[in-house]
Each structure stands twice: as structure tokens, then as C-alpha cells.
């Protein structure tokens, strides 16, 4: 079972597709959670997920915007997709009947 931050990272990387790399994933997570994401948390989690076979990383191209520094590109593997889906399903299942979910539905309707 994934951790919360692991799920966020996989989801952000998956959404970015071909453009998933450190800074872009970080920006995506910060925008979604409205909380700061540290480099330490980001890169150690990427390593951990790669070791579990949920992500694949490689050094990509360098751009002038980055001072000629290479990007660490990220791709979610099929195992990673399954793990994220399992996490999402579990969250949805456990959330059924939760007061805040009912309220949200009530507000929407």
C-alpha cells in the first residue's frame, strides 16, 4: 500500500506524462496540496518508488532555463499505476459514509 505522499507523487507524475521531472512534479504537488514540498522529500520518495519498481527515472536533457543542468525524468510504470489505483480505491471505499463526503454531496446538490 502506498503512502499519502507517494500517491501524490505518482499521480502528479502520471498527469504530467512525458514532461514529468523533479521541478514539474514538485510544482504540481504544491499547487494541489497548497503546501510546500521539499527537495529532500521529493527525491528520497522518487528513489524509494523507483526501488519498488513503481517509477522509472533517467537523466534527461538540459535547458538554458535550468542553467544548462539536466533534468531527472520520471515515468510511472504499470506496477505504479496499479499501486496508485489500489490506493485511490481504498480511499474511496473508506470515505463512503464519512460526514465530510456527505456534506460535500449535500452542498453540490
Amino acid at each position, binding site marked *: 500500500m502506498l503512502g499519502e505522499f507517494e500517491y501524490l507523487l505518482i499521480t502528479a507524475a502520471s498527469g504530467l506524462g512525458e514532461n514529468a*521531472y*523533479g*521541478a514539474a512534479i*514538485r*510544482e504540481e504537488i504544491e499547487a494541489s496540496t497548497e503546501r510546500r514540498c*521539499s*527537495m*529532500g*522529500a521529493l*527525491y*528520497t520518495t522518487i528513489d524509494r518508488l523507483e526501488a519498488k519498481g513503481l517509477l522509472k527515472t533517467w*537523466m534527461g536533457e*538540459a*535547458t538554458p*532555463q*535550468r*542553467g544548462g*543542468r*539536466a*533534468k*531527472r525524468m520520471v515515468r510511472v510504470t504499470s506496477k505504479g499505476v496499479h499501486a496508485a489505483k489500489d490506493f485511490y480505491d481504498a480511499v474511496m471505499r473508506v470515505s463512503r459514509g464519512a460526514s465530510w463526503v456527505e456534506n460535500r454531496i449535500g452542498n453540490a446538490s
Partner: protein
Amino acid sequence: MNGIGWPLVELSSKLLERDEREAVLGDLLESNESAWQGLLDVFGLVLRREAGLWKASRPWLAGFGVALPSGFLLMGVSLSVSCTYQRLINHKVYDCWWPTGHEGFPLLLCHTLLLITWSWAGGYVVGTVSRRTLWVSAALSLLPLFTYLCTFRLETVSRLCLFLFLLPATLGVRQGMRNARVSFRLASLLALTITVLMISAWSSKALWIFNWGLIWPAWYLVAATWRSGQEGRTGSWPIDHATYTRVSLR
């Protein structure tokens, strides 16, 4: 990122591995963070990396199993070898050092050889077992030395005598870090030599009981070379990357 802060961030990023440094510095430039925030990010990552290393048993083995106890014991051996030398060559008597105080040249030679081989074997094991935490192991091995120097006054011999073990130990660490091959035969010869010398010193009542603890890096080396010989059929240690991969894939 301002002009003064960036060189600091670049300097601190040297603590990261090359590829990671490249990616992190690029990310920081791209996100246009302040130098202070960049420094925090880099140090945060370095700390996490260092902490991650200590989840394995190897750094503990190298630091607290070899470096710290060996540093303490070898400091004592260095001092006693120096005192024995002074007694035999300059006829100065220091009756408080070493078990008997009546050693002759053969025992001095025996202790000197033991000091060199113990230090080298310990250093080699530390250098091979956990390279990335070497700075912690080095600090731990020097801790007893500096504690002693700060606590006691050494009037009989020069303070430098305490550091005698550092030369062979550093050589061992260096060779261990460079993956210098040690064959099973060489490791066995070293371990047997140390054992025979220790038995000889022990039978002359010129060996402190705790110094038997210094024997284990040499025998660990024998076990490691034997094991790598069994697994990789190379008969030397550390095994090369290709062999490691082959063995891991079995």
C-alpha cells in the same frame, strides 16, 4: 537566486552525487527560489540521504563495530609500543604501560607487527564495508584519541605516539575504498599471522585481554573472501560489479 547565495548552494550541493546534484541545482534555478530556501533544500536532502544510509547494518558495523573500539584499543597499543621502544633504546622506564614492562626486542617486534596488521585490517574493513559513512567512522576512531588528549596529560612520550596506528589504518582504508583485491589466501595468511603473533604475545603475558577484539576484522576478511569465492568464484573480496550482478540474478 541572488549572486552571493548561489555559489553557497552550489558548494553545499557537492555533498550530493553528481547526477542528483545536476537535477537539484537545475530544479532550484527553474523554480527561482531564494538562496536561503535553496540551501535549506540541499541540506535537507543531504540529511535525508545520510540518515537513509544508517538504515542498513553496514555503517553501524563499520563505525561502532570496528572504528570506535579499534580506535580506542590501537591508541593504547601505539602508546605501549612507543614506551617499550623508549625503554629498550633510550633506557627510559615507564612502568605503567603494557602488561609486563619487561619486553625485549622480539616482543617489541611482535607488538609493532601486530599494530600494523591490526590497523591495516581494521582500516580495510571500514573502507570496504561502508564507504559513504567513512567520515563518521573516521570521527569515531579518532574520538577516544582526542578524549584522551583532552583529559590526560602525556608527559612520558610525545603525543604523536598515540597516532602511530593512523598510518597503516589510513592505508587500509584507502585500499579498501579503491576496491584493492584481497585474495582468500592473502586474507588467511594475514589472519593466521595476527593470530600466531597474538598467541605469542599472550603466552608472554604481554597482551591485554581486550586486544583479542582486534582480531575480528582480519577473520571477517577471511570469511568475506571465502564467501565471495563461493558465490562469485573469484576468490577475492570485494567482488566486482559484474560478478555481483551475476550472483544477484541467480
